[in-house]
């Protein structure tokens, strides 16, 4: 058995959120530069220039890229040989979130109750997903998730006989409906299969992949490519003002499902697609 302390978890979570909100990932930066080069609408190109200047300035000033520093989503893969003594994992994670959001001068965007809407003032609680994996290590992945894009997500339980064409139309219509609200150029996280909640979780996990990385199964890699082309054909463009590029990437994650169903969930991420991970 290996022991990990509450303090180690807290520190790791704080550092990850701090970095994620300030320093944009290299893959997203590369995708944004490529988008600017491909963009044919000068207005959209100017928007992309501002977006690029913004992430550079955020890194230089060490301030958040976007004022919506998000709801804290945390995935924890916990090694079966690791023990956390006399402490709650949830508490350790939330203390890390609290520290990052206070010390980073991040916006506190969480309300205690969805209807009564009183701010918790420290951006907690986090949404935590835990999984047990074999071994002596712990992997922590964080996503500060902005709600401009989160609000535009959608889930549909298709009939098992539905065609790919029907699914593609559903997803493209959804991106059209989201328009500028999801802050395009977006990244599409698509979850297909499992149950209702599994599809939604797969969609979120799809956002964690390196931008433009391909699905290992060529069947799904081709679907990802087709979907990206179809979304960009809508012409919605950066910030919804028309243009060549509406999405930077489309990632699909799949899971076995029931003979009677075909769940499809889509989770959108804005161009400030933030996530960071560490192995402890």
């Amino acid at each position, binding site marked *: 058995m290996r022991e990990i302390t509450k303090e180690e978890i807290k520190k790791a979570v704080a550092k990850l959120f701090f970095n994620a909100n300030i320093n944009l990932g290299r893959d997203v930066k590369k995708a944004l530069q490529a988008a600017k080069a491909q963009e044919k609408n000068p207005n959209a190109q100017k928007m992309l220039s501002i977006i690029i200047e913004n992430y550079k300035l955020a890194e230089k000033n060490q301030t958040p890229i976007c004022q919506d520093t998000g709801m804290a989503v945390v995935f924890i893969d916990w090694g079966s040989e690791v023990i956390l003594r006399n402490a709650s994992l949830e508490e350790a994670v939330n203390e890390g979130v609290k520290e990052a959001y206070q010390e980073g001068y991040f916006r506190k965007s969480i309300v205690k109750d969805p209807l009564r809407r009183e701010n918790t003032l420290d951006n907690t609680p986090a949404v935590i997903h835990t999984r047990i994996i074999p071994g002596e290590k712990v992997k922590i992945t964080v996503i500060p998730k902005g709600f401009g894009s989160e609000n535009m997500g959608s889930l549909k339980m298709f009939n098992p006989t539905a065609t790919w064409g029907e699914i593609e139309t559903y997803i493209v219509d959804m991106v059209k409906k989201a328009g*500028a609200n999801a802050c395009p150029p977006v990244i599409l996280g698509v979850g297909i299969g499992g149950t209702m909640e599994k599809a939604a979780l797969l969609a979120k996990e799809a956002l964690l992949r390196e931008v433009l990385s391909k699905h290992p199964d060529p069947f799904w890699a081709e679907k990802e490519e087709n979907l990206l082309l179809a979304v960009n054909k809508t012409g919605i463009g950066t910030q919804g003002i028309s243009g060549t590029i509406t999405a930077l990437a489309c990632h699909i994650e799949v899971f076995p499902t029931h003979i009677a169903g075909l769940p499809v969930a889509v989770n959108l991420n804005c161009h400030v697609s933030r996530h960071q991970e560490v192995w402890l």
Partner: protein
Amino acid sequence: MKDLLLPTSDVTDLEAGEWLNLSGIIYTARDQAHQRMLQDGVPFSLKGQAIYYAGPCPAKPTKISGPIGPTTSSRMDPFTPFLLKEGLKVMLGKGQRNQAVKEAIKVYKAVYLVTAGGAGTYIASKVKEIQVVAYPDLGSEAVHKLIIKDLPVLVAIDIKGNSIFQN
């Protein structure tokens, strides 16, 4: 690029699709502030004024303003015709507006501008002064009075109702 100094009484020469250098006074207001203004009345005169749909991060001690990019404007659509009637001239945010807002923009000869969503730190660098002027209990969602200098914005809906959005 044309300059637009706020507040302003006349936006008739602005056309959808043109970029402006925006400077002057603009007030932030998001969902909760809009709801209060509708319920309890607007706590200051809106005549010729501009509203920015935004809620900043807290400022670092060395900075004037924390990151302050636009939020989704359409969430404010149900409240907007009322504010336009009260004299609001300029709105700044991100994304489409509904038909009722478009009609009200034509009736009250106002303008809707957009800037780059997600560009929080860049936009903060154009803020020269920031101060809470109403609803301090709302925190980031309070009404902040900003003085901005040379913020690039795109005219999204003009007084004729012309729009840069597809629908």
